[in-house]
């Protein structure tokens, strides 16, 4: 745990006093202190290309009254600097008075350990694994022309000080291991990427030969793509594989169910609470409480313990995801979804691990039921226009389906759909729910936060596939 009060002239008593004085006449707010240490080591083009270590320290001070949020941050933790911020907040809110809400739920549960993954292992041991990855893949097949592999590790310590002196702390580890391989055959080049990660130590990948599985998977995806044909264009049936393809849920549904867009009525879902937004059998939750997952948090960035929030239950819209600010304005409670990238940013309601739960059909049944369509196994990024509800994502591994059988692999194509209606097109839900490998980063308002997704195989009756073949 970081001690933020041995670094300068600022004592905890000073901080408590300034925070209480500043937030006295506000509805909510807090001082957020953060220290993070991170490393990234990259092997590329047969060499260790970079090894970077970074340390960051700072605070963000927030005051909220009515609908107005005032925010000020600095990377200088000192009495002067905090006082400057306090004045800045007060000048914005000078004419708006509020009543401070001291209430914040408590929990003793923890979903990851207080570890520093960077210091647990020597740099040398990480370099060795990266070199092994490179040798392994290049020896594997003559078509391997480029290998990139990286480790990224982080430890973030936060402390939240609320008016009245209440303090909440959390220490969050996070690691990521990634392999990208480019193959070249008959003048054609294709890449395959695979990675893993979570709030854990590097142990699993350094101790055993687990890194080999990551290499094999990246190689397999690239090999499939070497054989790919142009993708079809137009509306058709789409079978999504389990696990990572759940970024469809994240883009199509998840963002539209974040509290801020609904309070502002800019989400296509804002007037659909309690209504049927998905086929029967579709249940979607956003869960911050799964051990060691990338999107899990013991407390959110406002200090609220996270939870498993049911968003859609058997097709019916049940809840939005809320931070304290939007919850207060919508007369509801925070779901522990208040997150920020770091102390430089304001809190927004965000997703954690967004999951569609299993049904009782099999992937085989789905494929057999399709005359003409595609089977999408893995995706790159996605994006959504919250207001119109239209969302896209890009296939990185997909196949044609003809007459109930999986056919040739197809080239990366964008799939586009309509968020509020897509889940009504879900006609089968598989019994094979799977978590993603721990690689997701969600972007919103210029802030990236780690998230997870999960889903079983699903059959969507109608989606537009953005290929080139008419």
């Amino acid at each position, binding site marked *: 745990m970081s001690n933020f009060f041995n670094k300068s002239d600022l004592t905890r008593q000073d901080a408590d006093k300034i925070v209480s004085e500043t937030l006295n006449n506000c509805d909510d707010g807090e001082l957020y202190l953060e220290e993070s240490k991170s490393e990234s080591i990259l092997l*590329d083009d047969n060499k260790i290309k*970079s090894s970077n270590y970074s340390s960051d320290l700072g605070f963000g001070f927030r005051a909220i009254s009515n609908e107005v949020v005032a925010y000020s*941050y600095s990377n200088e933790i000192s009495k002067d600097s905090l006082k400057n911020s306090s004045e800045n907040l007060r000048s914005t809110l000078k004419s708006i008075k509020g009543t401070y809400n001291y209430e914040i739920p408590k929990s003793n549960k923890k979903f990851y350990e207080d570890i520093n993954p960077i210091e647990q292992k020597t740099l040398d041991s990480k370099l060795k694994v990266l070199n092994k990855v490179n040798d392994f893949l290049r020896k594997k097949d003559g078509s391997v022309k480029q290998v990139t592999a990286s480790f990224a590790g982080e430890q973030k310590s936060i402390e939240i000080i609320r008016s009245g002196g209440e303090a909440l702390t959390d220490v969050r580890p996070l690691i990521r291991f990634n392999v990208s391989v480019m193959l070249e055959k008959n003048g054609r080049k294709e890449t395959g990427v695979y990675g893993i990660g979570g709030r854990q130590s590097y142990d699993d990948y350094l101790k055993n030969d687990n890194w080999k599985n990551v290499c094999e998977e990246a190689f397999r995806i690239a090999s499939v793509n070497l054989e790919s044909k142009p993708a079809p264009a137009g509306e058709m049936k789409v079978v999504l594989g389990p696990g990572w393809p759940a970024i469809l849920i994240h883009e199509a549904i998840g963002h539209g169910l974040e509290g801020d867009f609904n309070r502002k009525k800019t989400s296509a879902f804002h007037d659909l609470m309690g209504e049927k937004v998905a086929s029967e059998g579709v249940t979607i939750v956003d869960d911050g409480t799964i051990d060691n997952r990338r999107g899990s948090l013991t407390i959110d960035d406002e200090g609220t313990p996270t939870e498993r929030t049911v968003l859609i239950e058997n097709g019916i819209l049940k809840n939005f995801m809320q931070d304290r600010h939007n919850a207060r304005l919508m007369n509801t409670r925070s779901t522990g979804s208040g997150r920020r990238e770091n102390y430089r940013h*304001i809190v927004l309601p965000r997703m954690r691990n967004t999951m569609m739960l299993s049904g009782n059909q099999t992937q085989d049944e789905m494929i057999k039921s399709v005359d003409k369509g595609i089977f999408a196994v893995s995706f790159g990024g996605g994006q959504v226009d919250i207001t*119109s509800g239209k969302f896209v994502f890009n296939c990185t591994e997909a196949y044609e389906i003809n007459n109930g059988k999986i056919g040739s692999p197809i080239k990366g194509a964008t799939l586009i759909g309509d968020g509020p209606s897509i889940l009504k097109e879900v006609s089968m839900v598989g019994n094979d729910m799977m978590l993603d490998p721990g690689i997701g980063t969600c972007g919103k308002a210029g802030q990236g936060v780690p998230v997870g997704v999960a889903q079983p195989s699903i059959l969507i009756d109608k989606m537009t596939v953005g290929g*080139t073949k008419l």
Partner: protein
Amino acid sequence: MVKDQEFLKSKASYCLDLAKKMGATDASVTVGHSISETVNFRNKSLEASDRSDGLALSIETYLGKRRSSISSSNLLYENLKTLIEKCFETTKITPEDEFNSLPDKNLLAKQISSLNLYDETRFENDKKIKYLKDLEESASSNNQIINTESSFTENKSNFILANSDGFCDGYKTSSFTASCVTVAKDENSMERDYEFSSKRHLSDIKQATDLGNKAAKQTIRKLSPKKIGSEKISIIFDKRISKGMLSAFASAISASAIARGTSFLKDKIDEQVFANSINVIDKPDIIKGMGSQNFDSEGVNSNTLQLIEDGILKNYLVDTYNGKKLNLKSNGRSGGTTNLYFEKGNISYKDLMKKNSRSLYITETIGHGSNIVTGDYSVGATGFLVEDGEFKYPVNEITIAGNFKDMFKNIILANDLEFEYSVNSPTMMIEGMTVAGK
């Protein structure tokens, strides 16, 4: 106030001296300070204010051909000492790479001319509030607009780049950005669009009312969109989308993508990659330019580069490390392009719109559908169906797809180039792309 050159220089030279003292053969350091203040409005009232004040430092230490780096926002001498020790310890065990080195001394920038990139005008928050009030007043004047959000950001930055070969320079920059997002609604749909203006100098920012009106107009015309069928059709890219083609092109000619062999434009120097009417230029010395710079992120002098001449690829974007790999001299593009643009074409916007009896005009794309290894392109799109030069109706929930290799060779540019951003393009037409819809 943003920290002055003397303060940043003292931090930089402390780091360089310390690294040398510890035994580093070379070192380079960048120290920067940035202050920015933003005011956010929503539906004509204040929603948020945000002040940020941040220092940042990054150091690279070398031991012969070994190199590693650290970065931090904590500039207390005690912390810097710990970090530099850690950095140099890491350097010692990082494997050698024959291409690691500081830039060639004779390529470093020598004379810094003023590009007028700093405007010291202070635009107080009260004035920002007045600007945003006016903006949202005009944005919401039509009752189909149901939500307006706008913001004004003022930023002042200063930096110093120093290395152990004696380079030590930096300068202040400023930027002022006003933006507006509007939501419109009718009985069939809800749509969002935006407009923004970003400049080095406050006086060059667009009028608040113009910005608000434009955002509203662009949003309202998107209401009640239709989906069209899947077909091959000529596509006209609005300027805000056509400049994205240049960004994709720039990433495909970065020396790093070329050296790694992961670009569809590898080994294409002196070959035809665009239609022969096309010229692409990267010009770092535009006065008040949003992408202007006196030197790149390694201190290397950057001159104007003709990247495409009559459709032929003439230059890659070269930094020191990848340049050495490719046996090329750095052309001052570590950190990418500066002010990148297509030279204007010779057909008017009006004539371009009329060129085909039926075409699709794209105003927004979503998704990350550019693959620079293969050149494949597939994105979600929103726009308008154009018939006989006129917008017929709005279109959405479609994708457009092609391959850059073919797309680049079929580009036709209008003559409406303006220098608004760091990447600029005239309106563009590409024939023969595939639209996937119904």
